[in-house]
């Protein structure tokens, strides 16, 4: 699975791009939607990293006088029932979203890669077992599986990450496994074996890097669904517990009564979730076009 070599294509076309900055500009012009996604994602990362500096007010301190305050010059996006600043809560909420999204993606992909490699390499009964377990796990929708896992682990930040990561494992394992099976027969793997490389080293140094492209594409897609799943879990009250300001839970707190009285409590957290997932999806689409030319849309 070769990625498109933009560098080579550019040189052939007579373009004179040498700097990294030039490369970035070229890619941004070639994939404008992907670039927009990257910008959204960078803003999201920035908000998470510098939340305490960006939001002047504390996301946890309550103020009964400001209860259900409309957006004002002090409370830029209004305040919730307990008088907590919505802007601060949304900015700080990006940390939770990022922690759960990226955490679940890394954990899920990590386990998936290890299981998929082992399954494709060892084969035999181990492979069969892994296949059947994947079947079982994929017989439930992601949210239902995560819901049951979250309920059985109990509500905490760490458990929410685990509950979302585990259901993500089978699809990663499947992709890595099928790639491993075909790569194992490649001449370069045979060459590595001939010069006396250990199987373990071959798996890590030769097979894994060659499955990276589809893996990155899948991982970006999973990042989006992990963030959405966290929001849904927290909305249902089985995700990240208080006092963390989770976007999903902010919606469930405000949902029922405030739809009429304080619409800003409903609009802004949902907007934050949608924007971040939208950015991730745009980025993922562009990455797929770049890394996986066979699926180009």
């Amino acid at each position, binding site marked *: 699975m070769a990625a498109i070599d933009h560098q080579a294509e550019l040189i052939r076309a007579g373009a004179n791009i040498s700097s990294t900055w030039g490369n970035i500009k070229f890619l941004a012009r070639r994939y404008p*939607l992907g670039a927009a996604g990257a910008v959204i994602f960078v803003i999201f990362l920035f908000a998470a990293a510098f939340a305490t500096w960006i939001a002047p007010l504390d996301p946890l301190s309550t103020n009964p006088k400001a209860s259900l305050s409309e957006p004002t010059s002090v409370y830029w996006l209004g305040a919730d029932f307990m008088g907590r600043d919505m802007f601060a809560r949304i900015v700080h909420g990006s940390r939770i979203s990022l922690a759960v999204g990226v955490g679940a993606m890394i954990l899920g992909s990590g386990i998936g890669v290890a299981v998929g490699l082992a399954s494709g390499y060892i084969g035999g009964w181990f492979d069969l077992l892994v296949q*059947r*377990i994947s*079947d*079982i*796990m994929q*017989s*439930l*929708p*992601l*949210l*239902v599986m995560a*819901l*049951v*896992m979250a*309920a*059985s*682990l*109990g509500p905490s930040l760490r458990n929410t990450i685990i509950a979302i990561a585990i259901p993500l494992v089978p699809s990663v394992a499947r992709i890595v496994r099928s790639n491993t099976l075909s790569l194992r027969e490649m001449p370069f793997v045979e060459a590595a074996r001939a010069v006396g490389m250990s199987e373990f080293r071959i798996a890590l140094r030769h097979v894994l890097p060659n499955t990276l492209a589809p893996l990155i594409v899948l991982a970006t897609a999973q990042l*989006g669904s992990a963030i*959405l799943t966290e*929001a*849904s879990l927290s*909305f*249902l*009250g*089985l995700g990240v517990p208080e006092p963390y300001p989770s976007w*999903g839970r902010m*919606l469930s707190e405000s*949902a029922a009564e405030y*739809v*009429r009285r304080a*619409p800003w409590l*409903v*609009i802004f957290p*949902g907007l934050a*979730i*949608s*924007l971040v*997932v*939208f950015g*991730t*999806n*745009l980025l993922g*689409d562009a990455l797929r076009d770049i890394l996986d030319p066979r*699926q180009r*849309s």
Partner: protein
Amino acid sequence: MGSYIVRRLLLMVLTLFGMSVVIFLLLRIVPGNIADILFESAGMVDPAEKAKITKELGLDLPLWSQYAQWIGGLFQGDLGFSYVSEKPTIEEIGPRIPITAKLAVLALVFSTLIGVPLGVISAVRQNTGLDYILRVVSLSGLSLPSFWLGLLILMASVRWFGDIPIYTSPPKNLFAELTLYLIPAAAVGFRSSALVMRLTRSSMLEVLRQDYIRTARSKGATEQSVNFRHALRNAVLPVVTIIGIEAAFLLGGLIVTETVFNIPGVARFLVEAIRWRDYPIVQNLVLFIALVVVVVNFLVDMAYMFLDPRIRYAD
């Protein structure tokens, strides 16, 4: 062919058996069962009383024996009793299934009616402004949490119409039912329609590059006939797969949407049962969902053969 179907059916049974073990164990590694929750909320701590309830519900038995009881009962059509309402599980789950099924069907119809035509338009007008707009809209469909979309619709209706049909009692006639379910179904179906659209588009693009499309054009077929009679018919196969898979996986979206719109379907009921650690409800319901998923997957594979005679499953 025959032996392929037999093998698939055996695998389905194996998967469901595995699921039953997984769900059974997952529910029981939780610290605390319904007895704990009941007593915690009631605030009374009488160990003897608690032990009595635990014994009544059979929660003091060893795990394997609880499991055997559940599966044994399943085979005799006995799903046990809900811990919370103490009614038979089947009476609790049964009436709620049609509600969720209707919502799911409506959502699927919605997503197909919107997704397929827009996907075709987007592919035929590839790389035009219209294509870009449609692609961005479909990506946003994948990005909006369906419960938020539901809340937005609720809010907008309250603002503009003053109110919105909300589930209070079972609808009396078909029309009332439709008005009640249409909005939640659209909120859930928007996401699937985005998926369907994206897939239709990429599948159409693939087919439009084929030689026989050029042949059709060169023999003078109209643009419309090329797009719909030659291209779409051949591009629709992967779309059928995604619609089939979505049929089963819509449930994820329905869980939150039924919660937002206060619809007493089976999806919302699952969340309530999980909160209450109502084991009989949760384990039977989850197993039922898994059954729906594997059966739908099987049916989609079978539908392939009828839609594309070139596909034959080897024995």
